């Protein structure tokens, strides 16, 4: 089972890719999945996503199948889901 991943802005820079896919574990929920993405994409990426205590930075937007998801609700992911993680942007 896999989940398609998309990143934007600084997360994309840190991950080194704008889109990718990653194996989804059986009955895996979003919190576990996102923590595993840090193993794949490294600490620079991880520091944008989580603070030094491992707490999720809510300035990042999580989107599952084009619907905003709340990290704290820890929803179940399904095979074929698309997960976007958007780091905040501000420029004009």
């Amino acid at each position, binding site marked *: 089972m896999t989940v398609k991943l998309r990143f*934007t*802005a*600084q*997360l994309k820079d*840190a991950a080194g890719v*704008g889109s990718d896919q990653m194996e989804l574990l059986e009955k895996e929920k979003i919190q576990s999945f996102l923590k595993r993405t840090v193993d794949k994409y490294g600490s620079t990426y991880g*520091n*944008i996503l989580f*603070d030094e205590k491992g707490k999720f*930075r*809510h*300035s990042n*937007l999580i*989107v599952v199948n*084009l*619907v*905003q998801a*709340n990290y704290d609700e820890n929803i179940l992911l399904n095979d074929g889901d698309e997960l*976007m993680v*958007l*780091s*905040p*942007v*501000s*420029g*004009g």
Partner: protein
Amino acid sequence: MEKLTKEELAIYEWQLDVPGHGIEGQTKLKNSSVLISRCGGLGSVVAYELAAAGIGTLILAHAGNVKHSDLNRQLLMTQDWLGKPRIESVERRLKELNPRLNIISVPENIDEANVAKLVGMADVIVGAAPLFEERFLMNREAVKQGKPLVDCAMFELEAQITTIIPGETPCLSCLYPDNPVAWKRKFPVFGAVSGTIACLGAMEAIKIISGFGEPLTNKLHTMDLRSMDFQTINIQKRKDCKICGN
């Protein structure tokens, strides 16, 4: 409400036939005011398109003088205005296009001292500021005063936009409840990117004022002009939002 003149009917002829807009919508534009926070790469094109569309009043806030590095994207700045106040160039260029436009120029960026007054003067706000602090200030005040806010932002070849209707949609703090840590102030940018999102921002303001079409309420539209990916994401209010939550 001021009616359209014969000259205005001639100038806006091609947009009067847009279904849902018409003379009534155009009259609403003429009698409305929009606050644009900063007239840089993004805000200058918002201002220009709204001036072209026949908005009655623009309230424009932008501090500082024109620099060389402004000229690749800040389309209301000109080479001969280098070193001079940006807001003066903005006003001059807009008046060349639309001399009927009422402009209230503020040579300051939005801050705690001026935000309540400036938001109070506008029917709609378009946020085109590069700093989160400014955007959060405008968001807070827009929610407090019940004013629609079109929030636009960009980074390199990416951009995003949402329309905030206080009480109905998520506000900016629903999307970004924490202060961002990774955001960089300076990034590579082409004017065509800021111009693209700016045109969308102008169109959102026009739709809100005129009352036609579907603004990006409860939606965040993102684009990546490198890959030509466009996404519209359904977004939600946070019940515990410190600005608009219960």
